[in-house]
């Protein structure tokens, strides 16, 4: 209805302007018209945004003429809020595995059924729960090299072992990431983690709780704790450790039993720019673009073809690299083992108790 009205007004205005003016301004007008089509993409800022602009946004604008405006910060609550209010600050955003389940339950993302992406996916698993499978990061163990000269921790069982590896610990204040680590530490094989035995996970966490001086909530906080030597062994995102290593800090990363978190591009439900948004998320999965984005943003691509565009040294910094297959493990968000919200509430109370 509204579009109809706008079109009508637009025609009238054009007629009123008169043919001569239109002709005189034709060339810049075409450009302006093309540039007028805009897509708002929610970004994480920092290197993530710079990598996205260079490798994903600019090539897309070049192909389609659709301008992309980055919008920060990422907020799941905002995604939900804008569907309620109908005022869209961003049309496209990325969601993690747990979030995409909740987003579908709350019906705040566009279904992908019937789209080109769903009809001919570029790789197996490219479409998952109305999201376009894009990239991943990993929660890894990192430690102060000087603190443990007689051997590196090999996995989460060692992280839990305060006899063999004494010292302070730190983990993210995030239930659905930390509970599986507790199970792995307790000896559950990584391929049979899900559905999780939640009570067993909490019993395992009870053992590491006294050594956990702080539960980090911000990525830069986790990095700061490792950089300052405040914490001896920490569970944090792989890129944060790589950055410190690039700075020459004496910290070590353990790729074994790294826990992979997938990220999916999704389209905000009901956005008036749905078509452009769908074209964008399809283009964002192209191997070469995704490879460049992941290299610059320190992530791991989930389109296997992206590794054709990456060197071995570059791939070694990515948790999804073929070399780490079998060593790393993934979350199974569809088969969690309990109500995620209830488990998170329990986790928060457990921390404060």
């Amino acid at each position: 209805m509204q579009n109809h009205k706008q079109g009508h007004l637009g025609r009238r205005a054009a007629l009123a302007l008169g043919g001569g003016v239109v002709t005189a301004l034709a060339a810049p007008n075409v450009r302006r018209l093309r540039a007028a089509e805009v897509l708002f993409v929610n970004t994480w800022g920092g290197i993530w945004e710079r990598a996205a602009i260079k490798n994903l946004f600019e090539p897309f604008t070049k192909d389609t003429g659709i301008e992309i405006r980055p919008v920060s910060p990422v907020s799941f609550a905002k995604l939900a809020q804008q569907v309620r209010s109908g005022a869209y600050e961003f049309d496209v955003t990325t969601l993690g595995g747990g979030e995409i389940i909740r987003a579908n339950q709350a019906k705040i993302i566009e279904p992908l059924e019937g789209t080109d992406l769903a009809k001919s996916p570029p790789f197996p698993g490219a479409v998952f729960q109305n999201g376009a499978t894009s990239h991943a990061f990993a929660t890894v163990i990192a430690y102060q090299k000087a603190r443990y000269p007689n051997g590196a921790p090999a996995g989460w069982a060692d992280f839990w072992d305060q006899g063999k590896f004494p010292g302070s610990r730190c983990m993210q204040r995030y239930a659905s990431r930390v509970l599986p680590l507790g199970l792995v530490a307790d000896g559950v094989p990584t391929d049979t983690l899900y559905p999780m035995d939640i009570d067993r996970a909490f019993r395992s966490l009870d053992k590491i709780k006294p050594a956990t001086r702080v539960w980090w909530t911000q990525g830069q906080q986790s990095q700061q704790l490792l950089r300052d030597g405040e914490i001896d062994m920490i569970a944090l995102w792989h890129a944060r450790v790589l950055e410190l290593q690039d700075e020459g800090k004496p910290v070590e990363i353990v790729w074994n039993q790294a826990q992979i978190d997938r990220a999916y591009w999704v389209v905000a439900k009901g956005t008036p720019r749905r078509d452009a948004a769908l074209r964008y998320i399809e283009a964002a999965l192209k191997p070469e673009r995704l490879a460049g984005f992941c290299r610059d943003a320190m992530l791991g691509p989930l389109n296997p073809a992206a590794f054709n565009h990456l060197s071995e040294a570059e791939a070694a910094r990515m948790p999804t690299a073929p070399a780490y297959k079998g060593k790393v493990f993934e979350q199974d968000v569809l088969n969690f083992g309990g109500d995620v919200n209830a488990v998170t509430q329990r986790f928060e109370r457990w921390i404060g108790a």
Partner: protein
Amino acid sequence: MDEAAGSPAVSRRIAPQRASLRPWLLLMPLLVFLAAFFLVPLAQVAMMSVTEPEFGFGHYASIATDGFYLRVLADTFATALLVATCCLVLGFPLAYAMAAASPNMAAAMMIVVTMSFWTSFLVRTYAWMVLLGRSGPIAALLDWIGLPHGELLFTRFSSTIAMTHILLPYMVVSLYAVLRKIEPSLLRSAASLGASPTSVLRHVVLPLAAPGVVNGLTLVFVLCLGFYVTPILLGSPREQMVAGVIGQQIEEFLNFGEASALAVVLLASTLIVLGLYHRRFGLDKLWG
């Protein structure tokens, strides 16, 4: 103050209607702004607390019976009280020195006190992380003196010190406002009548400074009730502030109803504190 209170009374005699309207007209832009961007959203929050997901007072009932929420609320108030007290203890000598100093010196000190406002809140919090850290200067100093100390960071000590640092300027400004107005001749006459410096402080300065003390305490207490980032980043994992729980209910659980109810409870408790203050001292004195 007295002049402003007097003028409407004078002008009422001349043009009762128009003169009393004029200040309101000047206030209109602000009032409209506040109504649109503060009162309406606030009313929405209050509405959501009883309508999401269905109509009823279920959220309030669960807050009142839930040990976790009650503990977090009690913790929040205890923290705010502790921080307000620390601000008073540290701020009083500083404000006193400022009041006693020459005008130029006092201005310089005021700039130093308020300078921390120029730095972003997060940067200040991270700075405390570095200062109190294991390899930071304070730990090094204590080691050098030979003073045994446990971990400084991630304790109630570290979060309290950081919040005190952030809120101290409010206390100093409130105290300075009253201390500055104390007549130096009063202190001199007390001393000349044989009062020792401590009894001058107890019997002359403190009673005259009492409004500023109460102002400062109330201001810091109320502001501190809304804090949560600092305790999460610097405090022990056990410390939880109600504002943090509200944020989490929205960001993680999309639980707008429960979060709204908690926000209303926090707002109501703040209003109760301000109400008590108003009955005893008058709210118009809060800003000195």
